């Protein structure tokens, strides 16, 4: 059913002259006139938080990452490519322009050790947990 629903969504959005929502926004429409919104995932293991964002077709230098009071903010701009002269557009579904996502981190992290990579259109931000946020084992001596 999903593919049918998507078709209906696209038709609906196109009827208003603008494609709203994105692949990562299954409800569509909430980003109406506000740019686009990449899908974001948050993973954790014992030592790290991992934030992944689907950002196909960006340039590394157009992605900004910042950390402020427990919020990780991802923002940037996907720019239109130069249109070839005489080219005619048949379909234009890819969303362009600015995006902005703020993610509330579930625990304290070490700001100096945050690392980010961008491969295959996916931004991966790795955030080492602060010592106090890591699970601890308290040794109990049995008497």
């Amino acid at each position, binding site marked *: 059913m999903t593919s049918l629903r998507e078709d209906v969504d696209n038709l609906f959005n196109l009827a208003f002259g603008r494609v709203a929502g994105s*692949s990562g926004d299954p409800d569509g429409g909430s980003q109406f006139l506000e740019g686009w919104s990449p*899908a974001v995932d948050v993973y954790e293991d014992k030592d790290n938080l991992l934030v992944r964002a689907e950002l196909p*077709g960006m340039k590394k230098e157009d992605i900004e990452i910042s950390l402020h009071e427990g919020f990780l903010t991802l923002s940037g701009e996907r720019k239109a490519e130069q249109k070839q002269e005489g*080219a005619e557009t048949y379909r234009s579904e890819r969303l362009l322009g600015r995006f902005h996502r703020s*993610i509330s981190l579930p625990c304290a992290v070490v700001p100096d050790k945050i690392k980010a990579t961008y491969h295959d*259109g996916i931004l991966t931000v790795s955030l080492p947990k602060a010592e106090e946020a890591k699970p601890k084992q308290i040794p109990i001596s049995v008497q």
Partner: protein
Amino acid sequence: MNTVSQKEEGTVNPQRLQTETEREYVRPEVNIVETKEGYVLEAEMPGVTKDGLDIGLEENVLTIVGRRGPAPTGNALYRESRAADFRRVFELDPSIESGKISARIEQGIVTLTLPKAEKVKPRKITVG
């Protein structure tokens, strides 16, 4: 539509719908432009590498499938991305020279170049 048109759009065949739902796919967003030389199709497939890309051509039906790489290890605390692979089907215009279709993938964007056959390219005829 007499271009690189959408095969699945428009009609709803209940029988086909059923087979389609056996395996769910994400429909990638595409841009298609036509130039004098041919068509250029771009599809968004984040997380797909060259090895995960499968492009098939059967008669005039082009199918693009993109398989996502493995999810990261660890617990997913919050998830918006979909796990399903990408798939989209197009019916090619007869003017396209199917033997000369080429593809590349870069940062999650698949770019297909579909050149027109020599005979349909516009030609300038000068009057002598």
